[in-house]
């Protein structure tokens, strides 16, 4: 019985982890797909969102304020980054893009150290969710984690609606799948780029804010997520929201279950999965190619 309850809890954890991963990697995949820019600093945006949540929660005492702030701040920060920096990187070679965004990682870390400090900080779970929901077999599940699960699913749903049902959404989809289409459709590519980058930044920062109470905030916290979200994009296929969604869930489950049952192989299992996908479908599971 307890083994079953444990497995159930692990699966819940895996889904919740996978959904957070989806918020990060969906932005990454769209930015790759639409703009053709490789952004290694995407994990730092996650870190910035988490620290923003920490600062807002410690000043106002409420994490609820941090969520809209992360989204709004993400949109503004993303738009600023795109207009000020990434727009100029687009035509550059990969080598330049890799190094420039690597420099951003270093500078963001340094700014964080200068503005705040280098400590671990824990962020309290909102009081009304600070209880545990009993699951079978004596295992209780944190209400906040369930809330994160619901919020992520809601955001994913909104994204799908936006991309599938709106005109701008379909333009983004077209741009992600066939960048040369954008000009044909008579859409202002510059505005699409700003929009996509702002949205991607906001999603990463929202993920950071949601994750802050779950894993504390600390220097370099975005690094692990960066690697995993890259793997999600490779497995899911470039520019594919659906691909990012399903592969994020898959990776979340494999990583979580792996850590629970074969801890030393978890990190390698995810990479092995990627190797299999590369052998079988080098352009990702959900790509149209």
């Amino acid at each position, binding site marked *: 019985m307890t083994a079953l*309850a*444990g497995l159930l*809890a692990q699966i819940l954890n895996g889904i919740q982890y996978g959904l957070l991963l989806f918020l990060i990697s969906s932005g990454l995949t769209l930015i790759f797909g639409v703009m053709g820019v490789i952004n290694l600093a995407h994990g730092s945006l996650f870190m910035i969102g988490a620290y923003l949540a920490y600062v807002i929660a410690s000043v106002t005492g409420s994490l609820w304020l941090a969520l809209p702030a992360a989204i709004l701040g993400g949109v503004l920060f993303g738009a600023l980054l795109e207009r000020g920096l990434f727009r100029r990187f687009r035509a550059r070679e990969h080598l330049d893009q890799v190094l420039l965004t690597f420099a951003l990682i270093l500078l963001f870390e340094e700014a964080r150290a200068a503005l705040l400090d*280098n400590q671990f900080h824990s962020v309290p779970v909102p009081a009304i969710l600070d209880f545990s929901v009993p699951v079978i*077999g004596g295992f209780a599940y*944190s209400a*906040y*984690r369930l809330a994160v699960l619901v919020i992520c699913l809601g955001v994913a749903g909104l994204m799908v609606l936006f991309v599938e049902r709106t005109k701008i959404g379909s333009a983004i989809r077209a741009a992600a799948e066939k960048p040369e289409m954008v000009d044909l459709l008579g859409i202002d590519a510059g505005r699409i780029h700003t929009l996509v980058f702002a949205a991607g930044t906001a999603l990463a920062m929202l993920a950071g804010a949601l994750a802050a109470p779950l894993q504390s905030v*600390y220097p370099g916290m975005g690094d692990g997520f960066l690697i995993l979200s890259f793997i999600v994009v490779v497995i899911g296929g470039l520019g594919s929201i659906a691909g990012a969604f399903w592969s994020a869930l898959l990776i979340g489950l494999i990583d979580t279950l792996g850590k629970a049952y074969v801890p030393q192989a978890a990190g390698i299992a995810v990479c092995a999965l990627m190797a299999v996908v590369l052998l079988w479908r080098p352009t990702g599971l959900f790509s149209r190619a």
Partner: protein
Amino acid sequence: MRPLSRRFMLAGSAAALATPAIAQGAPLKVGLMLPFSGTFAALGENIAAAFELCLQENGGKFGGRAVTLVRLDDESDPAKAPANVNRLLGRDNVDALVGTVHSGVVMALVQAAREKEVPLFIPNAGNVAATRDLCSPSVFRSSFSNWQPAYGMGKALAARGVKKAAWVTWDYAAGRESAEGFRDGLKSGGAELTQILTLPFPETNFQPILAQLPGLGVDAVGSFFAGGGAIQFVKDYAAAGLRDKLPLCGSGFLTEGVLKPQGAAAEGIQTALHYGDGLDNPKNKSFREAFQKMTNRSADVYAVQGYDAGQMLAVGLAGTKGDATAIKALGAAIRAARIDSPRGAFTLSASHNPIQTIWLREARNGENRVIGAAAEALADPGTGCKMA
């Protein structure tokens, strides 16, 4: 406050101005290779400040020789460690090394101390190897071995009637070594360590592990975590509703310096460490006052370790009249001494690790209050140590 320059020199006294031409009058340079940035920065600052306090109390001299301190930030990056050690030894020509917190970086220090026969005082990192297989006449530790606090915790649990326990930790050397200590401690009281659960360092997603705990059939859960991982683990443990079913305990670092962010989740957790709040001895009282006066911070276990590193170097140099190169005599003097530490007086074992009392503490109202001794005069086994 962080100094602007990484090469921050502190003149011990006016004697530092003595001309180097007079060999004995030349100041002794001590390199403080500690984390002054990154996650462990606060630990590094406390160790450095307490070492400096010890030096001040000695009038800026150890063994009659003026001492100059050279600070170097090791960034807790083992890959940069060999180059950083070279900076201190080659560029700054230090005569003795103090460092560090990170157990990977300390390996490079130990190696340099062995190869170049420079005395090294380890003010925190608890890798057992430093005072076991890799022990050396020139390597001294003022802190603990990872084995010691966990042994104390295991012994205390067994004494309380626990029969079976599990250990949760990161999968790295400190975690594995503490698990061994816990196992040996339990065994000393007839109890058994039935399961070791690990996750990769410094992962803080504890859910996969927490979900397994109720099914293990143990009476108690011990753990080794530090810093942010400790905060998160204690909070997640409480959030999973496990606190009342399975008492959580651990090596003292589980609740060390992190009680405030852990809040109510930590209340009542018992841990074992070589230091704690409310230790009633005169040395502790005067040390805490002086440290508070000097830094405006409360002293903690890291400060104590830094302070005692200073005391050990002082004792050693007193025995060699200020000659740091006379490793044999230096070691003999330190081993013969009884170090009057704020944690309670201790002596050094043959493998240069403190033989010390491990205190049992309970977290109450933001303090790790000492409630008794978990293991008295506990020495690390020192297995495999062959002093050349």
